[in-house]
């Protein structure tokens, strides 16, 4: 809040912020090139012929050879890599899927809405449940509530998501009939997959909140606040939580970025057409352009989320805001 208060500082602060964002975006470039190189190498070295996978096992050998020539698959590695980077960087063309012939960007954009909805809902559920539970566990450390919460956190962390997903389907779709077991179009269809996927995230957020709060509660300024006669509520909410938020925001950001890469198991169980399924199918079919495009997308998405988290720090913690001065 203090960030916006001083009018004289206003313009300079924004300029610095923009410079910072610009530098971060620039630093994406070596990341993207590095990621592309690694994926390219992996695909090149992996056995399996895209031509045969795409054309099917009844296609003639001629057709397979023609495909390989058309897509330049027999060219040397460096030629293929340079060609890809040139097209992507200077023409914005990351190719067409070998299988569907649609532009790779279209394929990813079709899958993106489902993935972001799933990721967002899971993270929201995790925040709404994880943070309060973590705070209360920290306040009431070693109590029964704390032990139960930590136990469930451990269970949530260890439970495989497909097992939990199937359990939820069995109970809520088959027995009770409250929610559909597949699809992602209506609100009710989003409930079960989001809950299944959020289990691990809730566990992580709860534990992180609890440990971060515990650390903060022990510090001197909290003791001062209490000594000053502040109500316990204000002590926790205003002073403790604000300072404890940095690690929590970090972990939530990491989880969200990770989920944006797709949640293949959840998507398979609940038939959600997200990025995870798209990528796994692409790898199975050796659909090189789609795999490369998908990995680029994940790298960009993760970097953007990291950038937003870093910017969020400034608004959350005055100590970090000060670094911008």
């Amino acid at each position: 809040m203090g960030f916006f208060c001083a009018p004289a500082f206003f313009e300079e602060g924004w300029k610095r912020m923009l410079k910072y964002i610009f530098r971060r975006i620039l630093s994406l470039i070596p990341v993207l090139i590095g990621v592309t190189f690694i994926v390219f190498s992996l695909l090149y070295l992996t056995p399996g012929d895209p031509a045969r996978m795409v054309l099917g096992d009844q296609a003639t050998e001629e057709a397979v050879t023609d495909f390989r020539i058309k897509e330049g698959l027999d060219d040397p590695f460096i030629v293929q890599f340079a060609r890809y980077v040139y097209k992507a960087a200077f023409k914005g063309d990351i190719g067409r899927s070998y299988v569907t012939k649609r532009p790779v960007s279209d394929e990813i954009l079709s899958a993106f809405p489902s993935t972001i909805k799933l990721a967002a809902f899971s993270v929201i559920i995790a925040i709404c449940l994880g943070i309060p539970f973590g705070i209360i566990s920290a306040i009431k450390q070693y109590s029964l509530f704390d032990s139960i919460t930590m136990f469930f956190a451990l269970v949530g962390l260890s439970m495989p998501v497909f097992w939990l997903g199937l359990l939820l389907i069995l109970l809520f779709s088959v027995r009770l009939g409250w929610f559909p077991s597949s699809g992602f179009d209506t609100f009710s269809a989003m409930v079960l997959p989001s809950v299944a996927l959020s289990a691990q995230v809730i566990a992580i957020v709860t534990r992180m909140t609890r440990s971060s709060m515990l650390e903060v509660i022990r510090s001197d300024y909290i003791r001062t606040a209490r000594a000053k006669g502040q109500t316990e509520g204000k002590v926790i909410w205003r002073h403790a939580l604000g300072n404890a938020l940095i690690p929590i925001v970090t972990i939530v950001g990491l989880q969200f970025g990770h989920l944006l890469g797709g949640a293949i198991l959840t998507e398979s169980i609940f038939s959600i057409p997200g990025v995870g399924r798209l990528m796994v199918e692409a790898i199975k079919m050796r659909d090189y352009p789609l795999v490369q495009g998908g990995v680029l997308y994940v790298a960009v998405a993760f970097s953007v989320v990291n950038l937003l988290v870093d910017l969020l720090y400034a608004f959350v913690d005055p100590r970090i805001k000060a670094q911008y001065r």
Partner: protein
Amino acid sequence: MKRFTKLALLAAVFAVFTGMCAGAALAKDTLIVANIYDAKTLDPIATNEVATSGMCLHVYDNLLSLGADGAPVPQLAEKYEIIDNLTYKFNLRKGVKFHNGEEMKAADVKYTFERAKSPAGASIRQYVDDINTVEVIDDYTVVFKMKRPFTPFLMALTHTCGSILNKKAVEAAGDNYGMNPVGTGPFKFKSWAKGDRITLERNEEYWGKKPAFKTLVMRAIPEATNRTIELESGAIDIAYQITTNDLKRVQENPKLALMRVVDNSTTYMGLNCSKAPFDNPKVRKAVSLALDTVGIQKAVWRGVGKAPVAPIAPNILYAIKDAKPHVQDVEAAKKLLAEAGVKLPLNVQIWTNERKERIDMATIIQSQLEEVGIKAEIKVLEWGAYLDGLKQKTHDMFILGWVASVPDPEFAVSGVFHSSMVGSTNFSYFVNPDVDKMMEQGKALPNGPEREKLYKDLQEKIDSLTPWVYLHNDEQICGTQKNIKGFQPSPRGYHVLTNVSFE
């Protein structure tokens, strides 16, 4: 008052929420079907796979379609004449409109097949390669000339690759045609949520019998249990690919019906005829005799499909249906191995991909082979790596499947037994000039008793040389709501929905 409005609001929200949870009421005018995969494209020649074919079947028509008894019947071609063994003449139906309003004419037919022969049709080239020219005689008459006699031609016309395209629409859409199909079929393309569902709408100007319902929704639900659950809850009307585990549930549910038919696929264990000791037909025969294929099929597939007796699947023309089931004879196997001079124990590898049923079959085979002194190690490979590996010629035995997408005997055998296909689809590296000659003859003979006899002899000859141990013919199993009428699954693996009606 304030508290009352709050409660009322809460109640309203709750009601809406429950309403949404209950799911949209199934309009009787919409047929919802669930398949295992989404179609890859709606361009009929871009790929050769079942989900795509299933959708193209409803958006397009062909010159000839597959009749109920498995023989081609006129569709867009009112009648046809076989002028000689290289020339076919088709008279087209008049006044048939494409979904964009254009009339279907001979020029569209010519365009369709020239496009199929172009690089765009790489996946289906083998079905149209023997077509030499397509001549437009007049607006409603087309003449096809073959390069050499090609009897499967009429059957190939019924395949998805023969879907008649509108030249204007394809050229206008360019590379995006796969998402904007225009055909003459009973359904028009409406929308596609990629990976989730395709929605088609009834073509009100259809030249033939119009479907009884307005909207067709094809959903992709990869998880088998989910398809069954959606069927049970009434969210879908028909579910394809019901698995062995869910068979009983659907059968015993009074609100559902189960429909099944043996399909055109053959799962087999191939032996590498180019590598010792499997280059000796006696050794191959010994392996076949050592195995109780009927028992293996029953144990692994638990009542689904059957154990084949010949390479051509039972619903394909000229399949051998009345042969006696395979009988295991361990003593005879041991004798043959001794005669061939094989040093026991023989160490071999069985390759397979990750499909659970194939791994299970390999495990039983492994234990049965041990009885005759063959020690087999099972190697499980990822699909892409598996196909690559088979090209290296170093394998001993491998489990694979073969489907005749065009149900003509030529396509059931030549891809896997002809010497020219070695290393491309013939992974048993089977080379026999007599068998080659018989297959080439069979391709050119017109349908009739002579062709029938040739394929029966061919199958017996292949059997005697034993490049394959036949393991399984799969079944197409579909579950439907009890009120669905007019649905019959096809051995092709994709099914006609145009005649479905609700009772």
